[in-house]
């Protein structure tokens, strides 16, 4: 993993893009797309379609990984909608990618939702659940972050936002063997 670029250090979309844009060694500016949507699951099918389109056409990932990243974004977005932002508030999804290198996604909520958790709480949950044998999970919930996101992203982290919300950040690097 060390040979891969380090897209972000501060874990916010703005910092990530600024750092890459100002990098004189960068041969091509990273793609950055931000979508703001109301806290409503109605829009998730559209987000999935969008994720599929940009991943397949603009990042260099294979179709299999496009589907996987579609699920990663869907699960993170759903968590933000269900727990992170209240109805009437927004969710902000930012995609950053350098073609044939990586894609990262930031999902930012406002912290006004039904279950406010800190970044530390989320990391603790993730660390304590990601290695569980999935066949032992009998509940309907509990597979999105700990199984799907944890298995299909190279790095997952959470940051407490200054306004009280949470930003989930997932990165997937392109493995040469995984490209088309």
């Amino acid at each position, binding site marked *: 993993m060390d040979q891969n670029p380090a897209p972000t250090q501060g874990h916010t979309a703005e910092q990530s893009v600024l750092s890459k844009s100002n990098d004189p060694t960068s041969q091509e500016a990273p793609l950055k797309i931000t979508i703001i949507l109301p806290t409503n*699951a109605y829009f*998730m099918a559209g987000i999935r379609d969008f994720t599929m389109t940009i991943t397949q056409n603009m990042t260099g990932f294979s179709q299999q990984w496009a589907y996987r990243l579609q*699920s990663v974004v869907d699960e993170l977005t759903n968590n933000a909608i*269900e727990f992170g932002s209240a109805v009437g508030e927004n969710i902000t999804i930012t995609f950053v990618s350098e073609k044939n290198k990586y894609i990262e996604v930031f999902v930012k909520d406002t912290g006004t939702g039904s279950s406010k958790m800190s970044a530390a709480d989320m990391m603790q949950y993730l660390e304590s659940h990601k290695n569980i044998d999935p*066949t032992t999970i009998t509940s309907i919930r509990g597979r999105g972050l700990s*199984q799907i996101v944890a298995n299909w992203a190279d790095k997952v982290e959470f940051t407490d936002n200054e306004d009280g919300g949470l930003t989930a950040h997932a990165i997937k690097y392109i493995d040469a063997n995984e490209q088309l």
Partner: protein
Amino acid sequence: MSDIQITFQDLTLGTRKAKLINFKGQLDETNVDHEAKKIYQVITEMAEPVLLLDFSELEYMNSKSIGYVTDWFTQISAKSGSVSIIGPKPNILDILKVVGITQIITVYSTLEEAKTALGALKSATPGAPAVTTQASAL
């Protein structure tokens, strides 16, 4: 709300009544709670449920949908029934594998393959569960 159509068809596998359930579209947060009730209804109505979940036209399923499949499996197993998955697209099979579903529910490539296997199992071993819990070879 995402589009999903679920249709039901009665089948006979050997001497057993079975229900073929076709899923067409996308299962996600917007529809799965509502749609899952239809499956629970079938499980409730059948004394020994034998369900074949036809995923050949299922385009997307999220983690909660997978959770429901696990719960159906648990409830059906408690009634000595069986559940199988038929013909999932590669992306669906991929996500079923990553969450371990293929370790507890048998996946068949086609309906014919499932009918043959389930019918043969029942014929060969009367009284035995129609579905093994071995991992799919897919």
